[in-house]
């Protein structure tokens, strides 16, 4: 079979927080720009823009990835979850509740990425130790809190998530 012809426009269909979106884009469009600028989902942040800080973390088919280092076209066909998808029916996700109750944020810039890394962590390990939490969020930089309260916030969320909620991808 002949290989596909290299294209300068590509079609992308993704499900974001349960809603399907299709767009024709340039292949160089980064997933984070697609989410923020095409879909207006600005909860996903751009921090360092050099694949270091994790502020742009989203879940792609349940895997936590840096959306600034992924082309939108690479996400074609996948299901994406952003921070906007965590709240359900006006109810904060237990992890969001944890960040609120345990003062897990100051400026809040890293928080969306932290929440999604934490969600992926709890899906793989419903009751992580402090060390496992710290290791799990080591790709997400916070310059305010020093992580102590972030760890507490994730422990709070872990304690309140039933096992079913922890593994399920909310739609």
């Amino acid at each position, binding site marked *: *079979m*002949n*290989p*596909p*012809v*290299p*294209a*300068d426009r*590509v079609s992308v269909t993704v499900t974001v927080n349960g809603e399907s979106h299709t767009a024709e884009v*340039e*292949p*160089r469009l*980064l997933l984070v*720009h697609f989410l923020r600028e095409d879909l207006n989902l600005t909860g996903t942040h751009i921090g360092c*823009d*050099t*694949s*270091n800080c*994790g502020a742009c*973390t989203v879940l792609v088919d349940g*895997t*936590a*990835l*840096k959306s*600034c*280092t*992924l*082309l939108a*076209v*690479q996400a074609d066909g996948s299901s994406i979850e952003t921070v906007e998808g965590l709240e359900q029916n006006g109810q904060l996700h237990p992890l969001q509740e944890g960040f609120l109750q345990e003062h897990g944020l100051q400026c809040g810039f890293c928080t969306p990425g932290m929440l999604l*890394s934490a969600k992926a962590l709890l899906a793989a390990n419903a009751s992580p130790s402090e060390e496992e939490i710290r*290791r*799990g*969020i*080591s*790709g*997400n930089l916070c310059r305010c809190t020093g992580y102590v309260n972030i760890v507490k916030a994730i422990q709070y969320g872990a304690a309140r998530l039933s096992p079913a909620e922890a593994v399920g991808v909310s739609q």
Partner: protein
Amino acid sequence: MIPAAFKYAAPTTVQQAVELLSNNQDAKVLAGGHSLVPLMKLRLATPPVLVDINRIPDLNYIREDSQLAKLRIGALARHNDFEQSALIRDRYPLLWDTARGIGDPLVRNRGTMAGAVAHGDPAADWSAALLALDGEVVATGPSGTRVVPLTELYVAILTTSLQPNELITEVRVPLPAPRSGGAYEKLERKVGDYAVVGVAAQVVLADGGSIAHAGIGLCNAASTSVKARQAEAFLVGKAAAPDNVNEAARLAMEASDPIEDDRGPVDYKRAMVRELTRRALARALERARGGAA
């Protein structure tokens, strides 16, 4: 930051990928993309065509092949797949150590071993580990496949002996010998940073307890990944004793040729190669003896 415009193709077979590389000058392979995409955003790389191999099925595997006597790693095996693999944890402690120290969890979810190896960055942890393990890559091109030992892969910084229309489809490592063990020691300023330097060590013990074989690879210690051959040769036939480990560490330091940069001056880096070699060999020997180090 936004990459320069390029054309994109996502082949579904290795053959298609090779054809695309042959027909499009300066095309680059996109695997995990965690070296390539940042370089493109910085406009340090401006490939006119990207060949995304992520849609090729059956390239993500890590399995032992007893006929070949090799561990076979597919081109799309991601760093995290090693971290999650009981086979790697139990039988390839050097690869296990290395995987857990690469980048951060988000990077490890996406980046691939084969991509890191093909990128040819002397700061690649995997390349040091694979040099210590006497690894090789399978390069697939228009006329089929050829096997390239890691020792013949690195020509200069970010430059390999691969042809522009060749794709690494597999990485191979010999099956572990009885009484073998390995360890990786990485010094980093902060989580997720490149190594200041890193040292990979793999040893095999003879029945009497002396060292039958040693492999030592250095990360970020010269303009290419380094195999510390003199240090390796020195250890063969020697007792697994601190004096011999120290001498091998000195020889490994002699094999290093780091540059001064924001991770430290030359003398410091050389001293760290020596110390990390000592530590890596000590842990590798402990593991070869059956310890849990």
